[in-house]
C-alpha cells in the first residue's frame, strides 16, 4: 500500500486519526483514548498487518505541556511503514502498554519509563532499564537538572 492509500485506510478505521506533518514516513496522530484497540487493528487487519514494532520512544514538548509517544511500525508482509504519534499530558502522564501486542515493546517501554518517566498501565515489569535503580529524575525531560551537569556558558 502506498502512503496515500495507507492514510486513507487508516482514517476509515479510526476517524479521529489525523495526518501528522513534518515526517518522512506516513504518519498519523491519534488520541490516547482507544490507542490500544487502534494499534491492535493495525497489527491484525490483513490490509495493514503491522507485525513489527521498529521503535518506540517519546518526545518532550515542554512548551506545549505535552509528551508525544511515537510508535514506528513496519509490516514485513507488505513492506510499508507507519509512524503513530500520541499526545499525552505532561503533568500526569499515563499510557496503555502495547507489550501484549508486540513483546519487544516491554523493553522499549521500560526505556521510555527510564528516561522520560512515563508510566505504562498494565506493564508486566516496569523497572528502569539503563540507569541505576537509585537514580532520581528522568534525564531526557527538558527540565532535568543534575548536580553533575555543566551548564554551557553563555
Amino acid at each position: 500500500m502506498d502512503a496515500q492509500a495507507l492514510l486513507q485506510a487508516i482514517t476509515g478505521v479510526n476517524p479521529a486519526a489525523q495526518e501528522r506533518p513534518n515526517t518522512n514516513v506516513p504518519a498519523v496522530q491519534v488520541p490516547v483514548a482507544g490507542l490500544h484497540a487502534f494499534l491492535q487493528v493495525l497489527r491484525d487487519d490483513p490490509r495493514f498487518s503491522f507485525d513489527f514494532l521498529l521503535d518506540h520512544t517519546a518526545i518532550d514538548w515542554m512548551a506545549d505541556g505535552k509528551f508525544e509517544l511515537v510508535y514506528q511500525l513496519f509490516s514485513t508482509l507488505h513492506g510499508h511503514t507507519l509512524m503513530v504519534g500520541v499526545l499525552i499530558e505532561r503533568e500526569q502522564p499515563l499510557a496503555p502498554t502495547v507489550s501484549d501486542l508486540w513483546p519487544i515493546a516491554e523493553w522499549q517501554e521500560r526505556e521510555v519509563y527510564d528516561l522520560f518517566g512515563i508510566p505504562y498501565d498494565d506493564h508486566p515489569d516496569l523497572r528502569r532499564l539503563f540507569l541505576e535503580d537509585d537514580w532520581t529524575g528522568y534525564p531526557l525531560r527538558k527540565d532535568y537538572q543534575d548536580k553533575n551537569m555543566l551548564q554551557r556558558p553563555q
Partner: protein
Amino acid sequence: MVDNIPGIVENFPGGSILVTTIDSIINASRANSLWPLGFGTKCCAIEMLMATGASHQDISRFGAEVVRGSTRQADLMIVAGAIVRKMAPRVRLLYEQMAEPRYVIATGACSICGGPFQYNSYHIVHGVDEIIPVDVYVPGCPPRPEAFFWGLLALQRLIKEGESIRRPDIRRKPVMASLPQGITMDDIQGEMRRLLEEQNVVNVAESAENKIWTKRLKEWMRKPSSKP
C-alpha cells in the same frame, strides 16, 4: 623488605651503580614492553587499538602490541573514548585490577574533558582523570595514529627517565602530548627505532653519577688492604 633493599645496597661501595643499573634495565624493559588492555569505549578505540594495531602503522614493532583481554596481564590502559557515569565504577575496578606498574593514556577529547558531551548532559564523566590517574593525554577527536604514537613515545620517555627503585610509589606528573605541526609518521617511527637501538645496550658507566661512583670504586680497589 623489598622496598628497603636499595637503602641497604647503596651503603656498600658500588651499590649505587648496582641500583642505577637495575633502574635502567627495569625502565628499559618496562618502556619497551607495554602491554595494553583491550579496552575501548568509543570511536577512539578504532584509531587507538585497531588502526595502530593493524599492519599499516603496526604498533607491534615498538613493543606495545600484545593486547591483553585480562587486566591482570596488562600494564597500559588506553582510555579510548567517553566514560559515562555508569561505566565509571567499572573503569576504576579495571584500573585497580591491573598490577603495578600501570600506566594510563587518555586519548581524545572525550576522555580528557568530556568532549562534545561536556555541557548539559546527564551521563558524562568530565575527564577520566576524575576517577583514575592519567600519565599521558593525547588530544584529538579522535587523534590520528601519529598523535597516538607521539603519546606513546612520551610515555616511554616518562618511564625511562622517571622511575627508580629508590623511590617506589612516586608518580610522575602527567604530560600533555599533543602532536606538533609537521611531524609525520616516519619521523615518529624513526625516533622510536633510534630509541630502541639506543636502549639495546645499557651502558653502566655513561651517566655522570655512575662515573663518580666508578671512580670511587676504583679508588677503593686501589686502597691498600687494612689486613696485616
